[in-house]
């Protein structure tokens, strides 16, 4: 990361990234659990780990279901963990609508797995201290989430 981060506090530094395979429903979620285990090894307290894992998991499911595959990158500072989840998929046309609880374009197959109730993005927002979403039709989707350490 570069100049955009300079805000007094030390900018989160890159730790590790994981590849998310699009459409692979059997593996979906495994990246988030790997990221959770990474931060557990770093010594994160359980309540923060849980928030990070929930955010990562819902975002990963979206990349698997809609984004056609992408990446989860983890950054760390002494005060914050930053997750960047990105894909080169179709993007989100109406982000305001997508952020509303209950709005979903999930297929029946996704619903059968227990997802597609339109609760993912709202729950990501609820569990994050700062959330930025960059998306446009045909331009992919990039979520940047920061969760502060207690």
């Amino acid at each position, binding site marked *: 990361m570069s100049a955009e981060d300079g805000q007094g506090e030390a900018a989160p530094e890159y730790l590790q990234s994981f590849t998310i395979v699009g459409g692979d*429903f*059997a593996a*979906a*979620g*495994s990246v*988030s*659990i790997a990221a*959770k285990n990474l931060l557990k090894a770093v010594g994160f307290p*359980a309540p923060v780990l*849980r928030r990070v*894992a*929930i955010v*990562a*998991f*819902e975002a990963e*499911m979206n990349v698997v279901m809609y984004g056609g595959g992408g990446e989860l990158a983890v950054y760390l500072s002494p005060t914050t963990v930053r997750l960047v989840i990105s894909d080169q998929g179709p993007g989100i046309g109406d982000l305001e609508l997508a952020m509303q609880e209950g709005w979903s374009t999930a297929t029946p197959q996704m619903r*059968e*797995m*227990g*997802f*597609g*109730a339109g*609760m*993912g993005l*709202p*729950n990501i927002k*609820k569990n994050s201290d700062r959330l930025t979403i960059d998306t446009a039709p045909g331009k992919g989707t990039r979520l940047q989430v920061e969760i502060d350490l207690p």
Partner: protein
Amino acid sequence: MSPTISQIKDWLDAEVLTGSEALERSISMAHSADLMSDVLAFSHSDSILLTGLSNPQVVRTAEVAGILGVVFVRGKRPAQVVVELAEEYGLPLMVTNLSMFDAVGLLFARGLRGWSLVEPGSAA
């Protein structure tokens, strides 16, 4: 009211599929859902999860949400790969022939509660 998974197993006449070494964990709340996003949004850690789904995402959702054990209702047995995944996480899995309604009712009658009675404000 914090029964062990072992007690819950007896109350539900359930069969343990994996995780028999972790049955003495005590459970502080219960959550029932077929919607994994609902588990991720509303469940609390240290809960037991009752569900009618049996795909790998149930086990991953439980791991992410800090769930201590999973009960599959109406005899819904997960595939071996799902059991192996739970084994990897050290997550106990059980199956009961009871319906969701009956399993939940029995646990409630024994004193277990869900988040909306334990911490009504926590949906915010």
